[in-house]
């Protein structure tokens, strides 16, 4: 098998402009699955989607190459939305890159269809050094398939100027839904938008997933939908109430102008958003000094959704041992420190986050990491997450807008979601 792929590659060299991205071409017998040594020669492909993180990726590959100087890593990149189209095509064509980025909604889809290599045999992965929620996210049927790279949690970005104008004190840790709603209402009374979020785009992660867990409800448990649970309905109703009393602009306003743009233009007092918005906001805000980050308000309990990416290896990699070694090398403490220093994402490795928090000291970014450590809830997924996320987009917006009663919508959603889950 290996020989044949090498021959076809060699035979094609004349016709093709370039072909080193094929993952074959290893000439050392040691490259195949066996023991890796410093002399192992191999070529790996690595695929990711965020150009802003290229410096981090390159630095970490360089570190990997200090250990394995003869393993060449060819990187390729595509924008996020193109990334998944390409990855799926490659998966069906048996051409997955050796190592690539994975996210929560897709992990079970790829792992459950035998596309990913189990990494249980990696002996010295310090699993207790990563947030448990993330380790669990990338564990499918009891096997580890990915090592966490970074994480994100949700918090409230506050526009201090609008709070002052409305005569509302800046919220503190432990503030409640009632205090949140009261602040939003008072800010809205001054003519600005009280609160904005991605709720209209049916983006649960940035909005109602958090409130569902804060209210004591759940999204999915034991492969059953939790949307119809009365506490979940309460978490959903939170948003409908904000829109109904004018504290939050209508879905139409937030569809035509994204919440990010509304907030960065100083038109909204509170913005529910993930830690990934820190960098873009820093660049687009007219006056970053008027912003501070506070934890999400609490109801029955305090909660924030945690999600993160992981490095995974293709099950069909021709250099599985080398691929797994790369997965491991990209997620070490050293690699995490590089990530933190570059400021593009919060590294997942415990104890390395401080550099990221210190990147913008006035904003109190520790909120995101404290949330992750103390009260985070794992991003809810199943084998085919996208299918029921699409249902949310079909059903929930009308209920948020007050056109259908929330209880009815949630019940409908839960029934349809259960039907999809049963098919998985």
């Amino acid at each position, binding site marked *: 098998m290996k020989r044949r792929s090498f021959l076809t590659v060699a035979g094609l060299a004349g016709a093709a402009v370039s072909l080193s991205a094929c993952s074959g071409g290893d000439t050392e017998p040691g490259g195949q699955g066996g023991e890796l040594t410093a002399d192992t020669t191999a070529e790996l492909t690595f695929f990711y989607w965020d150009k802003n993180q290229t410096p981090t990726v390159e630095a970490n590959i360089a570190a990997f190459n200090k250990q394995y100087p003869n393993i060449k890593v060819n*990187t*390729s990149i595509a924008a996020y939305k193109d990334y998944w189209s*390409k990855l799926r095509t490659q998966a069906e*064509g048996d051409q997955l890159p050796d190592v690539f980025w994975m996210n929560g909604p897709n992990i079970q889809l790829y792992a459950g269809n035998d596309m990913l290599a189990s990494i249980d045999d990696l002996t010295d992965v310090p699993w207790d050094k990563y947030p448990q929620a993330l380790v669990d996210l990338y564990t499918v049927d009891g096997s580890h398939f990915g090592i966490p790279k970074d994480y994100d949690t949700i918090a409230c970005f506050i526009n201090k100027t609008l709070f002052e104008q409305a005569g509302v004190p800046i919220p503190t840790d432990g503030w409640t839904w009632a205090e949140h709603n009261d602040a939003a209402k008072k800010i809205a009374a001054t003519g600005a938008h009280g609160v904005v979020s991605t709720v209209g785009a049916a983006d649960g992660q940035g909005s109602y997933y958090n409130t569902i867990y804060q209210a004591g409800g759940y999204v999915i448990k034991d492969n059953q939908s939790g949307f119809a649970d009365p506490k979940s309905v309460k978490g959903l109703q939170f948003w409908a109430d904000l829109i109904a009393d004018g504290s939050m602009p209508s879905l139409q306003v937030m569809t035509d102008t994204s919440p990010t743009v509304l907030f960065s233009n100083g038109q909204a007092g509170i913005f529910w958003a993930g830690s990934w918005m820190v960098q873009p906001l820093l*660049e687009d805000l007219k006056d970053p000094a008027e912003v501070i980050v506070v934890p999400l308000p609490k109801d029955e309990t305090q909660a924030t959704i945690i999600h993160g990416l992981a490095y995974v290896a293709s099950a069909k990699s021709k250099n599985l041992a080398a691929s797994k070694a790369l997965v491991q090398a990209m997620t070490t403490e050293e690699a995490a420190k590089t990530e933190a220093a570059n400021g593009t994402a919060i590294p997942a490795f415990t104890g390395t986050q401080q550099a990221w928090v210190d990147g913008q000291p006035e904003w109190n970014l520790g909120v995101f990491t404290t949330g992750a450590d103390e009260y985070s809830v794992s991003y809810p997924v199943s084998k085919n997450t996208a299918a029921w996320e699409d249902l949310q987009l079909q059903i929930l917006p009308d209920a948020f807008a007050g056109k259908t009663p929330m209880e009815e919508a949630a019940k409908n959603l839960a029934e349809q979601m259960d039907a999809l889950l049963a098919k998985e």
Partner: protein
Amino acid sequence: MSDKTRRVLATQVRYLPAHILLILGGLVMLFPFVWQILMSLSTNAEIQSVPPQLIPEQFMWSNYTDVFAKIPFLSQFGTSVLITVVRTVGQVVLCSLAGYAFARMRFRGRNLLFGLLLAILMIPGQAYLIPQYQIIKSLNLLETWGGVVLPGIFSAFGTFLMRQAFLSMPKELEEAARLDGCNPWQTFWRVMLPLAKPSLSAVAIVTVLWSWNDLLWPLIITSREDNMPLSVGIATLAGQYSSDWAIMMAASVMAMAPIFVLFFSMQKRVIEGLAASGVKG
């Protein structure tokens, strides 16, 4: 004022309604283009401002130089040129041959074949993606410009367009060529093809633009920054949660500038001046 000038002026006055409509319509067509150039000279914050700030406070020419730091612009530009030239030449040749046969030759199953050809336009493009990828893979053409070019040179659209062009040409010319002893190839090459130049150039222009902007297929086939065309390279600039619009706009202005120049310098030859010269050919 000479007679000629006066006559031209009189004509333009008579055409005034047409001028007014064309200018108004033209502005509607032009407006996104101008906006794109303005965006390419703005800061990202200006592009994202509410309400939108049309004219930047300060022209950010650095957006253009920044492009070179973000993507290997020149090598991707070269790849784009290569892919576009091969696709265009391939399409023009294959489509004019087939279009001529569908228009002028009579053979069994012609209409059925033509119908089946059009059918390939009727299926959602996404449905082709994975099978075509597997074919290119089995031809060992992944990561090559050949793989990017291949499916696209076989075009039902171009063939249809050329068929219509040949259908509307006088039959007498062919008859005369035949009497002169031309075989079908000679009739096609010496008589009919020169007459079809306007449509040929239409196929060429459309293919150039389509190939230049084509994103999904080259994105699937090429993976590395040094072998992808510019359309794919620019697309990699988009972020997951936010994009540097200004840089993307600058990159795309630079990408389309040569096409603009090409069309501008060619358009006279391309569309005009053929009605007369065609007969001589």
